[in-house]
C-alpha cells in the first residue's frame, strides 16, 4: 500500500505500512492507528514498543507441552500439584487459556499448533504430534483427552490421533459435544442434537 503521497512523512508512512500487515487491519484503520500512536504520550509509545520487542525476545515454546512460555519447561509442566497422568491435547495456546479458566482441570496440556486440514495441505507432519508421542514413551501418562475443536478439521485430527494412539494402550477420551449454555434447542443442528442425545446423563 505504498501509494502514500509525499504528504505523509516517511517515518509515519513506514508505521502505516507496518500496521497494515496486521490481521484485520485495512488501509484506513492503519492510518487511524498510526495517527493515534503519533499523538500518544512518548512513555506509552515506548512501553508498547518494548512490549513487542520483549515478546519476540523472551517468549519461546515449552519443550514438553509446546505452549508459549517465558521459562522452558513452562509453569504448568513443572507444577508438582498437577495430575501428571492426564494430558489434554488442544489445537492452539489460546485453547489452554480457555480450559484453565474453567479451573476444573488439573492435568497437563499439549498444544498441536493447528489441526489436520487435508484440503489446505496441512497434514499430520505439520503438527506437534511426534512431540506428543515422545511424551507418552515414559508410560506415566494414563489418559489423553482430545480437546480439538468440534469442527471438521478438529474431528479429523481427533480421529487421526485416536488411530495413532490406540495401539499404545492409553485411555483416549474426547470432549463431550452438546448444547451450548445460553443456546436455544430449536436452533441446534442435527449433528449437535444427536450427539447431545447420545451423551445424555442421569439428572
Amino acid at each position, binding site marked *: 500500500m505504498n501509494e502514500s503521497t509525499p504528504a505523509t512523512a516517511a517515518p509515519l508512512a513506514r508505521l502505516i505500512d507496518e500496521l497494515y500487515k496486521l*490481521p*484485520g487491519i485495512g488501509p484506513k484503520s492503519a492510518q487511524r492507528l498510526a495517527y493515534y500512536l503519533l499523538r500518544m504520550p512518548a512513555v506509552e509509545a515506548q512501553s508498547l514498543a518494548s512490549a513487542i520487542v520483549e515478546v519476540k525476545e523472551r517468549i519461546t515454546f515449552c519443550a514438553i507441552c509446546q505452549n508459549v512460555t517465558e521459562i522452558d519447561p513452562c509453569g504448568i509442566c513443572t507444577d508438582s500439584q498437577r495430575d501428571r497422568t492426564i494430558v489434554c491435547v488442544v489445537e492452539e495456546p489460546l485453547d489452554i487459556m480457555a480450559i484453565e479458566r474453567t479451573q476444573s482441570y488439573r492435568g497437563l496440556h499439549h498444544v498441536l499448533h493447528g489441526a*489436520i486440514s*487435508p*484440503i*489446505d*495441505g496441512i*497434514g*499430520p507432519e505439520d503438527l506437534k504430534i511426534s512431540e506428543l*508421542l515422545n511424551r*507418552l*514413551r515414559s508410560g506415566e501418562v494414563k489418559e489423553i483427552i482430545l480437546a480439538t475443536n468440534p*469442527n*471438521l478439521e478438529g*474431528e*479429523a485430527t481427533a*480421529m*487421526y490421533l485416536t*488411530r*495413532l494412539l*490406540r*495401539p*499404545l494402550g492409553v485411555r483416549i477420551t474426547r470432549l463431550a459435544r452438546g448444547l*451450548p449454555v*445460553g*443456546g*436455544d434447542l430449536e*436452533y*441446534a*443442528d*442435527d*449433528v*449437535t442434537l*444427536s450427539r447431545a442425545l447420545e451423551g445424555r446423563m442421569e439428572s
Partner: protein
Amino acid sequence: MAAPRVYKTEAVVLRQRRLGEADRILVIYTPALGKMDVKARGVRKTTSRMSGHLQPLTRCMLQLAQGHVSDVVAGCETLESFQPLRDDLDRLSRALYAAELIDRFVPERAHSYPTYRLLVETLRRLAGSDDPDTVLRFFEMRLVDQCGFRPELEVCSGCGSRIESEQNHFAPLSGGVVCRGCVAALAGARVLSLNALKVLRVLQRESYNDVARVRMDGAMADEVERHLRSYIVSVLERDLNAASFIERLRREGAGHAVEV
C-alpha cells in the same frame, strides 16, 4: 431489475477459512450460481446458531444477503449432514478429496447442475457403504468429462489410429491412450494394461451401478487410480493436497501403526 438483496440457494460447503475475530469465509458450491465465496459472521463463537449447519461437506439451504465484496450468510438449515463421513477417517479424507477436486476444477459463479448433482451423489455414496475408492474413480472420470477434459480412450492420441486390444500406454500430457508406435516420441507416457484400459472405458461410459459391479484386485485398482491421478494432475498442473493425506493413511494403516 437488480438481483434481490436477499436470496435463497441450496449449497454444499467445500471448505472454509478463518476471518477476523469470529467470522469465516466459506467456499460453497451451488447448483445455479456455481462456486462462490460467502462470509459467515460470528460462526466461530460457541453460541452461534449457524456454525453447526455450515461445516464443510454439509448440504444446506442458505439465505444469502448481498454484500460489498462477498455475500453474507443470513440464515441456514442443514439438508443433509452426511454424518457417517465424519465418523470414519478413510471416508472423510476421500470426501475432502472430492471437495478439493470440485474447488480446483470449477470456475467461480458458473452454474452447473450436473456437476452439483455428481458431488451430492458422491458424498451420499461415500457416506453409505459403497467402496470409497470405486466411488472416487467414478467421480474423477465424470468430473473431468463434465469440465471438458474427457480423456481419449478409443483412438491413439498421437496418430489417431484405433487402439488395439493389447498393452498400450497412457500419456496424460497428450490427453489419453497412445499406441505402441507413438509412445517413443511422447514424454511421461506410462504402461497401460489391457484390463486397466477396459476399466477406464467402463468408468467413462457406464452408469455408476455398472461401475460398482466391476470387481478389481488391489493391483488393478492401483493402476487405474495412478493413471487417473496423473491425468488430473497434468490437467490442473498441480498436486492435490488431500491425495497425499489419503496416501499417508493407507501407508500407516498397512504397516505397523506407528513407530514410537
